[in-house]
């Protein structure tokens, strides 16, 4: 067999090989350097947000494990579960033979999994999302790690363009003060969105202003909600749950409720820090500033 064609084939193979085949190192939210020797093909993605970001990058088919509260997108449902309400199983993660684990430090996931994965030599990357900017940078980071950096840049550019349009639309408009209720506790206290969270950032980007702007703790009494006297009351959850809440004695006296400015908003858009958060911001902007054109 003549040599020259073989060389040519090899050279061609090297040229065609994507640049990402070389090891990639990223810096994660826990100040760790995470290196993958080649683009991961078997990813355990813990939490809905991380699954949604990977799916938006077209990588849903590389996901081999999720946790029990992941409900979207449909193509990942039915994949093996590696954890749920009672925590995360090292055994079950390892059984999927992953070459990348993606976690967020909620519900003990990072603490339960970083140590064993590091000991076993499985790359594990920790993502934080304290504001919308971090959601975008997480998408970029995952794209780079998985060897689809360009796709990531395109996706982020599209999302950024939509954010820019919202920003232009609400620019110069007076921001209404907003209280967003994200949960109710058994003792009557309410969970509200605080500053310094991506949900709080989403409200601000949509042209709103948080009525609770200090460092309040997440649970507040209904009385504090009354006293903050917001222009708008948002309830993250189904319409009927919100009705049930504001039909309680006293709520009908609230200015926002009287003015029919109490709205139920989507939990999956505003409480899962992924690409759908941008949808949530567009929807919020339409609620905050209904007079402006919606496109």
């Amino acid at each position: 067999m003549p040599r020259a064609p073989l060389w040519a084939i090899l050279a061609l193979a090297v040229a065609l090989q994507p640049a990402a085949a070389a090891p990639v190192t990223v810096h994660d939210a826990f100040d760790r350097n995470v290196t993958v020797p080649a683009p991961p093909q078997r990813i355990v993605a813990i939490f809905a947000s991380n699954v949604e970001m990977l799916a938006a990058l077209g990588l849903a088919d590389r996901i081999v494990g999720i946790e029990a509260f992941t409900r979207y997108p449909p193509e990942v449902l039915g994949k093996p579960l590696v954890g749920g309400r009672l925590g995360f199983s090292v055994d079950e993660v390892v059984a999927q033979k992953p070459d990348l684990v993606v976690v967020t430090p909620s519900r003990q996931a990072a603490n339960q999994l970083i140590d064993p994965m590091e000991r076993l030599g499985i790359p594990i990357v920790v993502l934080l999302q304290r504001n919308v900017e971090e959601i975008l940078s997480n998408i970029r980071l995952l794209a780079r790690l998985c060897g689809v950096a360009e796709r990531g840049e395109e996706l982020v550019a599209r999302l950024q363009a939509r954010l820019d349009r919202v920003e232009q639309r609400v620019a110069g408009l007076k921001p209404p003060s907003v209280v967003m209720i994200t949960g109710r506790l058994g003792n009557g206290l309410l969970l509200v969105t605080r500053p310094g969270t991506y949900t709080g950032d989403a409200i601000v980007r949509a042209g709103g202003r948080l009525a609770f702007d200090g460092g309040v703790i997440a649970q507040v009494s209904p009385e504090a909600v009354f006293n903050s006297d917001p222009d708008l009351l948002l309830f993250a959850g189904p319409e009927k749950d919100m009705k049930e809440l504001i039909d309680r004695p006293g709520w009908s006296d609230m200015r926002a409720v009287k003015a029919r400015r109490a709205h139920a908003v989507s939990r999956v858009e505003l409480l899962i820090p992924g690409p759908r958060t941008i949808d949530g911001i567009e929807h919020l902007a339409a609620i905050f500033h209904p007079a402006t054109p919606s496109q």
Partner: protein
Amino acid sequence: MRAWPILVLALAFSIVIAACAGHDWATPADLLRAIAGAAADLRSRLLVEWRIPRVLAAALVGALLGLGGTVFQGVFRNPLAEPYLLGSAGGAALGATVALLVPLAAPQSFILPVLAFAGAWGATMLVIGISRVSGAVDAAGMLLAGVAVAAILGALRSFLMLALSDETVSLQIVLSWVLGGVQTPSWPVLGLLAVISAACLALTMRLAGRLDLLGLGETMAIAFGLNVNRFVALAVLAGSVVVAAAVAFGGLVAFVGLASPHIARWLVGPLHRPLLPASALVGAIVVTLADAIARAALPPAEIPLGLVTAVAGGPFFILLLARRLRT
């Protein structure tokens, strides 16, 4: 003494069973291959680096609880005494809550056992200090001070949990720690735990003779020349070190410290010199098996260890108790 070979064999058997148990069951042959290093696949590394250290840590935590329980039951001469009696559970839980919820500079795998130990030990020191200051240095005074300190620490912990939790840092992580769960140590840390456990056994064995004297009643003990108040304080200090070490690596594991000494007493009798090591072995067996159940019963989740020890150990203990009382 035919109880000893049985206990040792039962422990060895439990350890092997527990090392095999998991969402993904291994065979003893897999274990041997993994330990020998013959297979370098991910599953073998999981066994060697993760499951086996965890099983051994569970055994040691159980042994410490057995020792601690025996010391406390001996000191207070009360079959209901348990290792968490003098505020150590409340202190440990407070320390752990801080470690779990407050963002600190050190990694949690380090800060959690350290703060849990400090909390458990500190709370008991506080109890002893209070009973000394108030002049009630006897067992009853200490118990009352313990109840008060436990109430205060519990309230502080609840406040911290409410103040520091939000959507991302949930109360669940504190709750699941309070319900017990063995940390998986690295091999060097496991070595440290083994050394601590051996030291605890040696320390408590030095108390054995005087615990027997105290068991005769305070008057008799004094007649035999024992300074009862001094010894009670000393024994409580020693016991609280043992318990704090157990809590640091295993969280709050219910019931084992209460039940192990009783089971051991049925096997080897009431004298503390055989009772202490026997109780340690019983505790080790119980926690090893309970931890295996916790890991394997409901995949992919892990049940908190303290729930397993109470739910599975409780009826077993009642059964033994009933049979014992009938004969």
